[in-house]
């Protein structure tokens, strides 16, 4: 083991002092201090928009700070590009991978380097990269093309890229957001093996349990300011961290009233559909949702969730199987037919699917009502009625906009989601399909959205909640289905997170139970 890793010889590899970073209208970082020791995992915790990524983008050379100093290995540095940062031993793994899909792992690792001189010598570099990968337990085939790899493997390539460039400090921006539980385990193992070999890691996250598990120390940011710096993780509890992050006590579980499930509203039988590339995305999905029930659909992103939502509302052709809503067959019926049966969709993509960005709040909320009295009058839309209706919704759902004539593209994520929820809920849906309804929202907005969904449940609506946030699924849902590669792996009613995790990586419920008995 590296001698620098002895606990009595603590060295700071990175110190950031008084970092200020402004964006138009926002002070993203206000006098932020940060330090990183050799061989530690330092978590940077905070809500969305707290300034975690901004701070680390400064360290990684993507942003230039408006004030403050960055000191790396006792030298003041002034990075003007990511390349400078990498040369100083600092590498960042972004949330969105920077990999060329059509090229091999080796090619991606070598991209932008001064080697090889001209010829690629691929076999030689394949061996070299496999060697480094083995050293840190990053299992990936150097000759494989990026598009053939799973998300977890792609992340390993990103890490390899930085290690190959000799990075001693690795910044991981919400690395677990895209991973399945087993892949998260693997990642944590890799991170530990890297710190054991003297590397330092900044772990950006807003997931408390992961921060508790992996990090040695934690720095909490709130609205661009450090609320507590460099706390040893052993000295805090999860509740402490939550309070530091949000600035108030947080209830982890939303209050959920008991509702007796009623009739089956949505019944899906052996549903099959293709994705945009024409490859099978749904391979025989069957599920039921009843009145007064929130049914969760868990799964790692890209296992057919978005295709399922689109198929259910009629946006994507059904190639096999049936979709039945309130005893009516809506398979391959027009979207409008589904809407008349009380189907409502809260899409994952708020700006492209959920709203028309350049239209006003009014135009966006009347999209399901424009042809009904009093707003619709024959050929015409009654603008006065429409505005009145929009103003009512603005009031009822607490949408923060100056006027209802404002274009929705100017709204924040939380307000935009309120616009969508206002429109969908006021259409009094029998079936609500909510895809990632709280993604990217801050804690306050998340609570609001979750309350609205539960209120719908109490009113007897059937809700299919598709989400990648396991905690949210477990706290809201009465039952959880797990989808993997377009097939339902099983159904859990008791919130057994172990089982869900195993199913998310492709083990069927029957197999898990058989193993349990054996």
């Amino acid at each position, binding site marked *: 083991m590296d001698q620098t890793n002895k606990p009595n010889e603590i060295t700071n590899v990175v110190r950031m002092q008084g970092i200020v970073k402004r964006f138009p209208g926002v002070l993203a970082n206000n006098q932020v201090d940060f330090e990183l020791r050799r061989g530690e995992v330092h978590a940077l915790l905070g809500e969305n928009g707290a300034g975690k990524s901004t701070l680390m983008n400064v360290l990684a050379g993507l942003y230039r700070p408006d004030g403050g100093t960055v000191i790396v290995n006792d030298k003041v540095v002034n990075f003007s590009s990511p*390349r400078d940062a990498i040369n100083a031993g600092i590498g960042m793994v972004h*949330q969105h991978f*920077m990999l060329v899909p*059509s090229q091999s792992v080796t090619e*991606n690792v070598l*991209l932008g380097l001064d080697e090889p001189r001209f010829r*690629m010598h691929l076999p030689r570099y394949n061996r070299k990269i496999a060697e480094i990968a083995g050293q840190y337990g990053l299992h990936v085939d150097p000759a494989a093309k990026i598009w053939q790899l799973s998300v977890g493997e792609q992340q390993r390539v990103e890490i390899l890229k930085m290690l190959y460039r000799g990075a001693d400090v690795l910044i991981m921006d919400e690395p677990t957001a895209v991973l399945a539980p087993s892949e998260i385990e693997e990642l944590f193992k890799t991170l530990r093996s890297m710190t054991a070999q003297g590397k330092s890691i900044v772990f950006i996250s807003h997931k408390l349990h992961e921060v508790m598990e992996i990090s040695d120390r934690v720095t909490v940011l709130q609205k661009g300011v450090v609320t507590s710096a460099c706390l040893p993780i052993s000295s805090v509890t999860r509740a402490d961290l939550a309070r530091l992050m949000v600035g108030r006590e947080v209830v982890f579980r939303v209050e959920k009233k008991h509702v007796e499930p009623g009739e089956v509203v949505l019944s899906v039988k052996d549903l099959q559909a293709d994705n945009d*590339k024409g490859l099978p995305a749904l391979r025989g999905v069957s599920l039921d949702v009843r009145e007064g029930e929130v049914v969760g659909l868990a799964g790692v992103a890209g296992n057919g969730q978005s295709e399922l939502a689109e198929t259910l509302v009629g946006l994507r052709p059904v190639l096999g199987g049936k979709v039945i809503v309130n005893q009516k067959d809506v398979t391959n019926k027009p979207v409008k037919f589904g809407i008349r049966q009380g189907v409502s969709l809260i899409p994952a993509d708020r700006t492209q699917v959920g709203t028309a960005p350049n239209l006003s709040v009014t135009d966006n909320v009347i999209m399901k009502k424009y042809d009904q009295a009093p707003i619709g009058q024959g050929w015409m839309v009654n603008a006065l009625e429409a505005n009145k209706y929009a103003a009512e919704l603005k009031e009822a759902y607490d949408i923060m906009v100056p006027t209802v004539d404002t274009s929705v593209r100017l709204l924040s994520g939380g307000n935009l989601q309120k616009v969508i929820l206002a429109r969908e809920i006021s259409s009094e849906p029998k079936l609500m399909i909510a895809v990632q309804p709280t993604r990217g929202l801050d804690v306050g907005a998340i609570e609001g959205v979750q309350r609205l969904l539960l209120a719908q449940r109490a009113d007897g609506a059937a809700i299919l909640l598709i989400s990648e946030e396991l905690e949210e699924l477990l706290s809201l849902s009465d039952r959880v289905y797990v989808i993997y590669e377009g097939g339902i792996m099983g159904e859990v009613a008791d919130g057994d997170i172990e089982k869900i995790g195993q199913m998310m990586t492709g083990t069927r419920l029957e197999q898990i139970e058989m193993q349990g008995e054996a």
Partner: protein
Amino acid sequence: MDFVLVILASGVATGTVLLYATVGEIFSERSGVLNLGVEGMMLVGAMTAYKVTAATSDPWLGLLAAMLAAGAVSQVHAFIAITLQADQVVSGLALNFLATGLSLVLGEGLTSLRDVVPTLPSFTISLLSQIPWLGRILFTKQSVMVYVGYIFIPLAWYYINRTRPGMHLRSVGEYPAAADSLGISVFSLRYFYVFVGGMMAGLAGATISLSISPGWFAALTTAGQGWIAVGLVIFAQWNPARAAVGAYTFGALRRLVLDIQGPTTLLGFANPFFYNPYYGFFLKMLPYAFTVVVLVIGSREANRKRIGTPAALGLPYIRGQRGL
């Protein structure tokens, strides 16, 4: 048999023009920039080559001038498409009008110089021409540009697929944000490869006017071959080796529809195409119609195999949109 060999041999010569233009456009598109101005740039090349050669009596100097001139013209498109981030289709079409007009104006009066201007040499490679059939087709009395083409195909393929600069070229056309994040300058690489594409188009034009069918005949000099080249890029799936297959096939096809009108008999029957003006027009249309057919088939196949098209083709690269 002789008739077939003659058509194939002259088809290879004609196809060489398409080969240069197509591979040039492959370089440009692999970097992510669609340049529809190939036809115009070829005309600039053909005109410049002819004019400079007429003035200096040195066809090699003409060739060099043609490449530089067409390369310079291509930078207009590069500026509009890369720096100003305008629509590449519109800009490419505009470049086409500009370049065509430019070459017609500057080429005024060159038509009468036919047979006075020296051309690039043609020769037979004695050893290789002994190979039965292939020797007659590929290595007998061909233009020096044809031979250069043979060497050029594998080199271009190797450069794109097996070298470091080639990997950088592919990465800026596939995922410029990734290349940018690793310190590769997307802008300068794209400018460079648009310039390479322009130079190759100029080379293709010069190959026509100085060698394959010497002379300057205004817009008829290229007669739409630049457009065929743009189509061949898709057929080639952005691969120089496939581009060669396509270019030579189209070259042979072009020769066939011209030469089939010559002989009085075909396979012992009276030749229905013998200087028949109606069939003549129909035949001249065939290569272009065939382009459409090949494009339809080729792009379906490319779709099915999920290969080929550079992912960032036609999209301007804007730094802020790297998703941070």
